[in-house]
């Protein structure tokens, strides 16, 4: 006992800067090691090269789109009326915003409700919960064109809604459901159990605990997930062409067809007549999606701050 105390005291007296670390590898030693094992050097170069390629791909795409697109961001591109001479993207921007809102109104209650059930009510190892999770994962894996196909068969034809805002919104709502479910569940699980215990201890029931304590503290995480879903909605094309359709005007009512910004860009690209405008639209789309992603990351960070 006394011995270990002594050691501790001695350790306190040692000047740390005097210690020579023996596990520190100098540059020279490293080069020597590489000479002996050239494969290691090759691996290091490969790893760095791969990262450089990934970064270069992103930078190249962004810079190229900006350089070609920004000069085309003319006031005409944002005029209120679309016609065949001036393929304004303003109607499609408005349509995209409406579509996003309607989709969220449908999917958020279901996604958040499902996450609450999974995180707060379901018992561990419940068979049904396993099935729900498997199904959510299956939904997440379905390609958007299959969603589009289903939306066309079910909403457009079986329910006879035609190419319409509602058909597009419901199709997308199913598509983003797993995203919202997963992120919300993760956010709920980060709420410490002491919050729940405290709330129960003060006599409130489960429902009140969830609504007043757990949901508010998980809110940044839930929001981050929803914003992520917005990003997917804004960028989606394949699921919308045969559900929301591609009418050029404003979709005024729930059963009107319209085109979202991404679909608008697809049509422009396909026609091949308005390449300049397509570049401009690409810039708008990129800026929107990046702003949305940044916002999501920012909100999610706030959750991290709250936890501390």
């Amino acid at each position, binding site marked *: 006992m006394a011995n270990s105390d002594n050691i501790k005291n001695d350790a306190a007296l040692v000047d740390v800067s005097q210690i020579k670390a023996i596990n520190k590898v100098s540059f020279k030693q490293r080069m020597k090691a590489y000479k002996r*094992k050239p*494969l*290691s050097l090759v*691996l290091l170069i490969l*790893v760095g*090269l*791969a*990262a450089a390629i*990934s*970064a270069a*791909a*992103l930078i190249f*795409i962004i810079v*190229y789109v900006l350089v070609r697109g920004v000069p085309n961001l003319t006031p005409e591109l944002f005029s209120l009326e679309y016609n065949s001479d001036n393929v304004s993207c303003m109607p499609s921007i408005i349509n995209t915003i409406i579509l996003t809102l309607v989709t969220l109104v449908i999917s958020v209650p*279901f*996604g*958040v*409700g*499902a996450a*609450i*059930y*999974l995180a707060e*009510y*379901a018992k561990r190892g419940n068979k049904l919960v396993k099935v729900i999770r*498997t*199904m*959510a*994962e299956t*939904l997440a*894996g*379905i*390609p958007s*064109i*299959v969603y589009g*196909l*289903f939306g066309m*068969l*079910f909403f457009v034809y*079986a329910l006879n809604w035609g190419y319409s805002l509602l058909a597009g919104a419901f199709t997308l709502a199913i598509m983003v459901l*797993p995203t919202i*479910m997963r992120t919300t569940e993760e956010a709920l699980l980060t709420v410490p159990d002491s919050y729940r215990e405290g709330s129960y201890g003060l006599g409130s*029931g*489960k429902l009140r605990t969830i609504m007043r304590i757990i949901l508010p503290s998980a809110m940044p995480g839930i929001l981050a997930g929803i914003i992520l879903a917005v990003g997917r909605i*804004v*960028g989606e*094309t*394949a699921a919308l*062409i*045969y559900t929301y359709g591609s009418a050029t005007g404003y979709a005024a009512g729930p059963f009107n067809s319209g085109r979202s910004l*991404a679909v608008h*860009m*697809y049509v422009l*690209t396909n026609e091949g007549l308005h390449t300049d405008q*397509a570049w401009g639209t*690409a810039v708008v*789309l990129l800026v929107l*999606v*990046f702003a*949305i992603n940044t916002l999501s*990351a920012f909100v999610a960070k706030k959750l991290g701050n709250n936890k501390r």
Partner: protein
Amino acid sequence: MRLNRFREKAMQGVFFLTAVTSIAAVVIICIFLFYNGVPAMAEIGFFDFVGGQKWAPTNVPASYGIFDMIIASIYVTAGAIIIGVPIGILTAVFLARFCPAPLYKVLKPATELLAGIPSIVYGFFGLMVVVPFIRDTFGGFGSSWLAASIVLGVMILPTIIGVSESAIRAVPESYYEGALALGATKERSVFKTILPASKSGVLAGVVLGIGRALGETMAVVLIAGNQVQIPHSVTDGLRTLTANIVLEMGYSTGLHRQALIATGVVLFVFVLLITLSMQAIKSRSEKRG
């Protein structure tokens, strides 16, 4: 008090119902796709449909064979994997083990941004930049297997990087330290101990990437050329299952339309198989962990 109890129970029921929606959604999607697609397969003949090499829906008599498109989908996915997987995994290794902290702060969000770019923008970019490049360098039309593979390879990068990086980070540090202590270089330690230990997680990322590449539509339709054929060289064009649906759904009627839905069913079955194998990989790695 009783009202409270009722409210608790009612809301629990509501939450339960919302949770069951995802099951309902999958079931309805399955029913509607199969209900609309299977009769067409029966009418055309299953083997004539899946194995037939002639797609001429407007001919009289029409023929509906999607074999070339199945092969094309597999080819394009394979091309994307060949380009995307090595770069993706190595980038994940770099991010997890070699990246200096300040660089990580930039590089990590960059890979996430790559995931955020809409597929139509990838397609447009491919059409305007990659396709002319291939036309000028290798000849041919430019719209080709190679163009689709390159663009898809970049598109699946963020998926593979994200999943692989977290798998690599989940490996206990002691593996690495053990290897270092035995005198291995840093690179050797990473590639001989950490990477093998994170095998199943990395594999899960690759499978997820395969699913994305197989299901990608808008980018492929713009840059793959869309000829119904089995390409003989990388500069030949091809038409994937997804492209077939988008291209012809707009004007198709009758059996032609049903055949397109059946194309969707084939795609759907492929994706379900991938999802299942993905879940199998996951549960195996969980059992081991």
